[in-house]
């Protein structure tokens, strides 16, 4: 197994494979669902006084396993030292550095317009699939592309991500497993932290002028673990209809009540992750957003699943691969952190959190 890191200017010029400069070691890369590629880092054995354009911050960085591009982002922070330590940030984080604007530089909350215009201005993404419609009313002034995408996907129970191919995708959580995990570990215990049964959504109602603040509630009728109420404020999205507000509330509740979250993460060693037909999967190719069906772990379903007869499955929320040890660290979607605001900001993106950005724990 041979890994390499290739960097290239954001305009596609001056490609260079970093491992040609010196020994690359300690390579790790991570993906999350949502957001796709999040962070990666490696050590580079070059002299402290070394300099090369391939390590310039802001260059597009691609991690290859053989010839398979498994991670994509930008060079973030090359720290001189012996060895150098080079940190990279996934492409999704660039959304924080681009304003959601129309071609006339007017703020927009429409994801398609905002993304396409940002790409024209230099955002190194590719968009080949349709995006959800904008959430909320016209005339909003969202303060980052991240917020626009978070709001729009949250309203339709989707998540957005950019993986190694730099293509922006939006998708719902998968419902069929990609992998079977022969567990040597569990993702920790089940916890009622972050669990929601009744979601109150506060919004501006456009039925009246001026618009009044109203609240809709989305509830699950099934509360085996008790009642857990949460308030989400989307007044920043402007005046919307009651129907839209209810739809948004339903979508956000759906993303929060699948089952109880886990409190930990799981370490996966070679040979422990299989495809559904029982063939070992190369761990370097695993990424967040795919579903896992663990086998052999003690995960009493009555402690966490809404439907006891369901086979336990979870969607990978955080996925980090360590090249040197050939091990994966996985955490289910919603496994961390431990309060709803953080969950929405990290996993879903809080519509109300105007500073929301891909947060990498």
């Amino acid at each position, binding site marked *: 197994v041979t890994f390499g890191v290739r960097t290239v200017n954001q305009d596609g010029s001056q490609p260079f494979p970093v491992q040609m400069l010196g*020994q690359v070691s300690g390579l790790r890369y991570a993906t999350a669902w949502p957001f796709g590629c999040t962070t990666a880092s490696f050590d580079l054995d070059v002299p402290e006084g070394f300099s090369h354009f391939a390590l310039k911050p802001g260059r597009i960085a691609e991690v290859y396993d053989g010839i398979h591009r498994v991670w994509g982002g930008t060079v973030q922070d090359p720290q001189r030292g012996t060895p150098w330590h080079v940190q990279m940030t996934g492409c999704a984080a660039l959304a924080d550095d681009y304003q959601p604007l129309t071609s006339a530089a007017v703020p927009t909350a429409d994801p398609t317009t905002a993304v396409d215009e940002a790409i024209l201005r230099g955002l190194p993404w590719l968009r080949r699939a349709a995006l959800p419609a904008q959430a909320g009313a016209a005339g909003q002034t969202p303060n980052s592309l991240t917020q626009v995408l978070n709001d729009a996907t949250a309203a339709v129970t989707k998540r957005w991500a950019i993986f190694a191919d730099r293509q922006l995708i939006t998708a719902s959580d998968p419902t069929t497993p990609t992998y079977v995990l022969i567990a*040597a570990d569990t993702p920790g215990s089940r916890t009622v932290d972050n669990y929601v049964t009744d979601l109150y959504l506060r919004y501006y109602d456009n039925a009246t002028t001026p618009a009044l603040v109203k609240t809709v509630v989305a509830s699950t009728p099934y509360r085996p673990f008790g009642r857990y109420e949460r308030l989400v404020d989307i007044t920043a999205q402007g005046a919307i209809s009651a129907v839209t507000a209810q739809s948004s509330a339903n979508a956000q509740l759906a993303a929060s009540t699948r089952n109880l979250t886990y409190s930990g993460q799981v370490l996966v060693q070679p040979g422990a992750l299989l495809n559904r037909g029982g063939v070992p999967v*190369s761990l370097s190719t695993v990424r967040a957003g795919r579903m896992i069906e663990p086998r052999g772990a003690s995960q009493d379903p009555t402690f966490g699943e809404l439907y006891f007869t369901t086979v336990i499955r979870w969607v990978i929320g955080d996925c980090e691969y360590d090249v040197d040890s050939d091990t994966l660290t996985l955490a289910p979607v919603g496994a961390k952190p431990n309060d709803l605001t953080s969950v929405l900001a990290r996993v879903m993106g809080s519509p109300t959190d105007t500073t929301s950005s891909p947060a990498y724990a």
Partner: protein
Amino acid sequence: MLGPLEINDGNPYKIRAGFDGGAGQLETVSVSRLLVDGEVITGEHTSNRTIVLPITVRAADRSSATAAVEEIVQIVRRDAYTLTWTGDDGSVTVFDCMKGHVEQQWDLNQHKNGVVWLTVTIPALPFVHPPSTSTVGTSVGPTASVQLDAFDNTTALAHNGTVAVQTTGKIEGTGCVMETVANTIDTSATNYATGANGETLYPIYPYTFMFSRALASLDMTGLFTVVSNWYGPGVAYSERAFTLRLTSAGGWREWTGATVQANASNTVYTLPWVQVLFDLLRTPSASSGTFNPAAVTSYTLSGVGGGYSSGNGSATWGVDDLRAYPALAGTITSPSTALALAGVTGIARTPATITVSANQRVTTLLLARAPNPRTGFNPRLTPAGTVFTSAPNAYGGSAVGQLNGLGTYTATYTAAAGTLHGTYLVVTRISLNSATTDTVTVTATVAGSDVTESISRTLVAGVDYTPGPNAYKLQVIGELTLPPTDVPATNYGAAVSIAVSDSGGPGSAGIQHDELYLIDMSGEAFLLSLPLTGTPGFKYFQIVPPDQSGFGSQVFAGMQADGSDWVSVTAYVLGHGAINLNPGTASLLVVLDNPSGNVTSGTLAAEFSPRYFAGAVS
């Protein structure tokens, strides 16, 4: 520059007792399971050895001894150097060393007499090798020509004229959606003989494609009623996009028509010609054949549009103008070779300087090594079943255009389940004429199982490929863990079907697949992709592995065999930049490609120094 230093001849260096040559350490991972006792030990990487070299310097005086010490220190502190050990039997073993350190036992009296005791500690690469190198090589390139079919619709077969293969279905309008009608074709229809009028169906391997044109007409009588205030009084108006799907035993072909307009005065609409390909003749030596419309077991016609409709309509399907695709005389030359490179001595994976030559300029050079392939594993698959492909340069614009409207196109490859075990990267060779995007989906299934593995990737014109009639390019689609469901040894022969489908849609004509490569993710792969500007590509390539300092890994290319014009093309390497060899026989996939695929011969030579654990074996 320091020359070689002899350190055991007593002039002035002598190795004293306490020498330790060290040993490479295999790094292992212990994998445990919750429900199974014991742990599995895995690991491939071997870490460095540490050499301890106690050296006594015996020189004439203090200054001579000091100079000798300084010389040792200079060498030991280099980034990279070698230590050569000549055994009693004359065998020579080379250690690849890196920055070490020197300790001196201080004794001023002895120093005055020219005697200094040093202990030199040297980290070295884990495996040792002889000073000489060996070279294994072979010819690469098209090991076999593959006769493939090309489009040529110039030969009309016996029949011309519409035949009433007709059926009437009920088309019910509900609101704005016209429902699908599905009917069985009249199987009493006339057979269309080929070869009857002296046309020749060429003996083609693997398959002959039959070409027909299917006519569908749609009678919309009664479908549209005048509705007040719907697009204006007195006019019922509908715009519908129609999809016609014809299903035969071999699968189905679908055509999505342009928008059809119908109104009260135009209730019968004849759909445009639909061009349908059937792979009815599967006998390699067939010289004639029969096309029977009955092969079309059913069709569906569906549409969704605006407007209001109700009532029943009917649809008619017929066949006209049967044509064949005879083979062109040309053959396609596969750019790839699956290679078993024998004669690699040593006991560990071996860095090698690999030199590749080709008789035409190469813009894409792919090398892949499967570390421990299962018996029968073939990284290079050729398509079976229906595939539209041709010799490069052999198809023209009009023929390619006939692919328009066929929508999704699928090429199917097969491999034996027992030859696969693990995660493989799927690489296809695709030419796309005019599509702006093309989503390639690869799905694998094992005969007898409904568990599938699937991966897809959207290729983007201008980013992933340059559209054009001869724009072959290797495309990495993604990884599949194969077989999708494991099989016991008793069923190793089970067929794994790997279907590659394109959905570039109408206008994406010229999608062509030649080959599919399975790159073992537990192995190594090298991909050089040169930009296609100017006169792209080179005929000679050399991949130089990194030395023990980590530097020096380079890829050179040029047009002269002697290397006199070679320059580094390292910047265009994707992924890692070197390939190791397996001891024994290295299983290599070699692809020498350019957009027109005209490389017809080449060579590959690997120069290596065999790797050993304790000492070079002669």
